[in-house]
């Protein structure tokens, strides 16, 4: 897995690429929680995720709950088919705010 963080319209967008599994999910967790502790609203871009296991999902859940506690916005954007299949298994596709891209999320924020 690789990750990149970019700033866009008031969000830190954490782009995860490749397989997010037990070998690297701690890095994803660190990146996500780091943005929140820096006081940022966070979006996780999963468009380039080819696989995510339960440890990767746990990182997303922890990010979501941490952001919520701190009154920061959190969401997923561009969820790949592979990632969505796993989120559906965990019944989390109805829990996380999910949008097709950052623009769609921004439009909802303004609505």
């Amino acid at each position: 897995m690789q990750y990149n963080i970019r700033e866009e319209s008031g969000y830190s967008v954490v782009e995860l690429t490749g397989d997010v599994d037990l070998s690297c999910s701690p890095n994803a967790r660190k990146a996500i929680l780091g943005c929140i502790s820096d006081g940022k609203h966070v979006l996780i871009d999963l468009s380039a995720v080819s696989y995510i296991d339960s440890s990767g999902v746990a990182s997303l859940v922890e990010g979501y709950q941490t952001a919520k506690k701190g009154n920061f916005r959190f969401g997923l954007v561009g969820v790949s088919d592979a990632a969505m299949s796993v989120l559906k298994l965990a019944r989390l596709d109805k829990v996380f705010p999910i949008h097709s891209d950052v623009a769609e999320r921004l439009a909802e924020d303004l609505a």
Partner: protein
Amino acid sequence: MSHGKVCELRIPSLPNRLKIVRALVSSAAEQAGCGPEVTFEIVVAVNEACMNVMQHSYRGDEDGEIILQIFNNGRDMVVELLDYAEAVDVNSVKPRDLDDIRPGGLGTHFIREVMDGFQIGRTNDGRRNYQRMTKTIA
């Protein structure tokens, strides 16, 4: 076609070996004639089962060994994982309530959700834990 044992893989209990496991299981499922969705389901289950061994049986000890065996009896694909850790309390291995939104605890749920059978226990010789996952493919 019935082929019995398809393959066996032995790996150290290192998380970076999970990718190899997924590749092997994916290849075996495809060769058995499984479509993309069934292949994905079997890969998810076996990956989670390996994680169970690494995180809970070996408790993060990377010197442990995991044995993965894949069988195809013509109707079912059966994947069995063996480890040499202390005996697992089978009563403690339960899927959790998904309405309780929290990190962790999803692995067993994933396995039970996608596989047609899932058994855990200790081998007859008392030396190893096993996880046996069955998926009907024909």
